[in-house]
């Protein structure tokens, strides 16, 4: 875990990165059409990034030492189903997290 000072430095680096993303078209493509490489980045990268983060989140759990990872799998399906149904991020996140917290509470 990063301490608060390290996290502050990392947060400042994040701020610069986000600003770079937002300013990119204003810096380089005023009026011109963006190159193909950028349009590829726009369409596929968010999907790839989110899939990597989901898989890595589950991969880092301590599988085999208790039911918690399986609770997370169940809660994850609940999130996806809620989201396909209601298409409301808040409902999906709160619903899935609430289910996981309930499962943890009942187990203990």
């Amino acid at each position, binding site marked *: *875990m*990063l301490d*608060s000072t*390290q*996290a502050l*430095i*990392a*947060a*400042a*680096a*994040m*701020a610069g*990165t*986000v600003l770079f*993303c*937002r*300013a*990119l*078209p*204003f810096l380089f*493509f*005023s*009026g011109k059409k*963006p190159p193909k490489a*950028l349009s*590829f*980045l*726009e*369409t*596929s*990268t*968010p*999907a*790839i*990034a*989110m*899939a*990597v*983060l*989901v*898989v*890595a*989140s589950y*991969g*880092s759990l301590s599988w085999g030492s208790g039911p918690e990872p399986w609770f*997370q799998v169940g*809660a994850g399906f609940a*999130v996806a189903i809620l*989201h*396909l149904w209601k298409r409301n*991020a*808040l409902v*999906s*996140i709160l619903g*899935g*997290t609430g289910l996981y*917290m309930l*499962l*943890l*509470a009942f187990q203990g």
Partner: protein
Amino acid sequence: MRLGFPILSGMRMFQEDFRRAFKASIPVLLGYVTIGFGFGLLAVNSGYPPWLALFMSVVVYAGAAQYIGIGLFAAGATVPEIVLITLVANIRHAAYGLSLISRYARHPAFRPYLVFALTDETFALISSQDSKDKDRGAFLLFVSAMNQLYWVAGTCLGAFAGSLATERIEGLDFALTAMFIVLAVEQALKLRKAFPFVLAAVTTIGAKVLLGDRFAIIAGLAAALLAAFLLEPLSTKTGTGHA
């Protein structure tokens, strides 16, 4: 009469812009206060001081990136890893700016802040306004600033609530995974392609097995992006029959 009091009429226009901006931003008010609350709560629950959550909401101001950031800080990620993941998670924002270049160029004094504050929700909100409002620099500035104010207010409330809790709230960390799943589902609905997801899953599992958890995200991401970059032109070419 109006010509006789240009300052007064300017003031009225300003007030009118403010009023209309507030009315337009109400849907974002509800969303940002709650998601900002969740961020503040998560940051403090993960062991970080409230000021760090506030700092992030003021200078980073990117919902998903801030949630991911807290997860990466807690996992002890390095700054290059954090920068790369932030870049990949937020490069979509570059697409938003493309459609606003000429509009924002007309308001050079406000442009630095307008560009800084161009979140998903602000972009969606600005894009959906009629041109009468979209052409007013003050309206654009007010909408952008109000949205960030909601985000910062939500963060403060969440961080405060988190600092009142005497014990760590068990299971709250799953909210991060849940948010990644929501964003992945959104992407799946938009792309209607399984390929990027399967590719990312394969490279991430491969990276975890070969290199361990420490490098699973960065190596999985790099491998998936490289593979997608090499395979994408091939698949679109054959798909449209240009080859």
